């Protein structure tokens, strides 16, 4: 079986937080306790959509110590391939879902003397769990959270009420932006930096931190890519001897799974490296979109990450 171990659960509550974001809460169907987890972990939620099995990763935002339930907060993406839309429009209280055991690709470095968190939009979710974890161990942290406007400030009121001294909110529509250079410059020795948000924000903060001489090992970020739609293509799976057509709105990994071939995965967002697959033969262009492969791996044409990357050309044969 691929992916992390699975847990059968059902939707226990759905709470609309604002125009875009809804919280989904889950409880186990077997009456047992959920495993604890470390702040920053995600779960992959498995949903049946007709014949299609959707598997989407979301950060766990509930208290890592709370074993009675897990929660995720999902931003509706009207442009994507429908994973978040399906959750928003089709999932009802009481529905059965399958959750993976937590997997953490964005964990706190517990050696840090201080944790400096930079969040943009829905990127707030892993920090919510990390803050709960750090509060319990009296950790030193500070959050800078940028949102579009007051009405889309997911969890802003909760955060401000509970941690007025550690949370700083920035509203785009009020031209209120994080002064990153001064913020980074004033940090005490031993501070670690964590960024979760849109790609542009991650690149900007990482770049500024590097320019200021922050060591790489003190900079942590998480960017899950959602697979993007693209031109349909055909792939031959050599080990399982199958030819698979990858549709416009499915990823290569999803198409492989649809054909009953068990392929490894964890994050399904181009970050963890688990689904790395060898290319046996290719005549065409790779559309690499992952964060995992090194540039020379990408240009070699010998490797592909089927969770987010695609292919445009005549022939593609994979060792799978």
């Amino acid at each position, binding site marked *: 079986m691929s992916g*992390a171990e699975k847990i059968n659960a059902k939707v226990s509550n759905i709470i609309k937080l604002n125009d875009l974001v809804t919280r989904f809460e889950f409880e186990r169907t077997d009456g047992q306790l959920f495993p*604890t987890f*470390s702040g920053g972990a995600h779960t992959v939620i498995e949903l049946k959509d007709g014949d299609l099995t959707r598997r989407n990763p979301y950060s766990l935002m509930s208290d890592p110590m709370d074993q009675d339930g897990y929660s995720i907060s999902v931003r509706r993406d009207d442009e994507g391939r429908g994973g978040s839309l399906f959750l928003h429009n089709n999932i009802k209280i009481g529905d059965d879902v399958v959750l993976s055991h*937590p997997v953490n690709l964005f964990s706190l470095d*517990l050696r840090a003397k201080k944790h400096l968190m930079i969040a943009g939009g829905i990127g707030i979710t892993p920090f919510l769990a990390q803050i709960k974890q750090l509060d319990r*161990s009296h950790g030193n942290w500070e959050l800078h959270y940028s949102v579009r406007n007051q009405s889309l400030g997911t969890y802003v009121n909760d955060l401000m009420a509970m941690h007025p001294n550690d949370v700083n909110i920035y509203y785009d529509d009020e031209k209120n932006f994080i002064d990153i250079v001064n913020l980074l410059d004033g940090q005490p020795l031993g501070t670690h930096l964590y960024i979760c948000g849109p790609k542009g924000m991650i690149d900007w903060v990482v770049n500024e931190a590097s320019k200021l001489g922050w060591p*790489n090992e003190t900079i942590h970020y998480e960017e899950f890519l959602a697979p993007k739609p693209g031109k349909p293509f055909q792939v031959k799976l050599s080990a399982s001897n199958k030819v698979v057509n990858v549709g416009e709105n499915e990823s290569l990994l999803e198409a492989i799974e649809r054909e009953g071939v068990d392929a490894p995965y964890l994050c399904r967002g181009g970050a963890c490296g688990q689904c790395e697959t060898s290319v046996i033969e290719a005549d065409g262009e790779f559309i690499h979109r992952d964060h995992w492969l090194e540039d020379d791996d990408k240009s070699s044409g010998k490797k592909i990450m089927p969770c987010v990357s695609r292919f445009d050309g005549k022939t593609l044969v994979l060792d799978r």
Partner: protein
Amino acid sequence: MTIQFKDETFRDDYTFKNSEWAVKRFPFPFHEDSYMYSVNMEQHKGGPEGSIYEKRFDVDEHYISEMRDRSEVLKDDPLRCQSLPHMTLAGWDLLELIMISKSEDYPDLFELHRNGNNWRWINKPMQIDHSFTFLDDATLPYGPMEYITRQTQGDFVILDQRESNLWMDAGMVTTQADWSLDFDIGMNFFEWHAPVPKAHEMGIFTRALKFLLNIQQGAPARRLNWTMTVNPLLDTSPENYHKWGVQKGTLNPKNIGEKQYLRVELQTFFRLPRSNALVFPIRCYLASFDDLMTVPKWGRRLHRVIRDLPEELATYKGFIDNRPMMLDYLSQYDDGKPTSDGIWPDLQTEPARD
């Protein structure tokens, strides 16, 4: 079955002995008639009833005496147990994992009662009945890792995961095959493996690290490793080499069967949930050559493996000088008959005698 705990020593007079039960469940590490390194990992999800694979943390007849030996080692050398400051949460993770596993797997020996963070732990074989507050260090007599590993057979290394590497940042190491926690503490995966011959060229470590970094909650893994030890010594540490190294010279053709031990490590790997660290329990099992020869398949196979082992490996494992004497002894038990695949004794399917 009820385990009959033994009162025995792993030093000085060496009264350690395996019962017939312990010999038959010994983790013989060779699944075929030859040996080379490999990333021989499998899921740690139980195993045949009564085997050392069955429970998450195996308890056997040597439990009480091994724990006494550990406390004596620690009395002489407290640095065998170390935990860097950021590893305390991982220590609690380990305490929780072991207490839950042992109380579920051995309900007649261990009990755990939880009411929120108020916990009561009962360890009947060691006569411990202790109430404490989970995640509150002040309520335990030792740090959480030291507390629970003074009550659990096997060495424990806790690895912090960061920068796509594993860092040896905590451990309890008193039954080790000639390596030192005090020396390795704070090193990363490649640094502490630097002395191992051949494996680097084979790309073993790069692949093993990749595997370990991806071990997930709820999906522990395991493998066997092995070496040779003269006398049933648990503490074969570099710190004490001056005491045990010389004992290798006491072997002679008369005493080799009882003095030469095959030392096997059951290595398991668990992802720790609260800290995202990885714990690496290394459980040592000892069986004398005489013990092993009671299983004919193991007699044949051990002879063939030791005979054909590359010289670098016999040197690294520390028995190159004694190998000719071992082979003289072992060859008596190799009748040239075929052996079955796998590590199990297979006594029922022994080839017919000539």
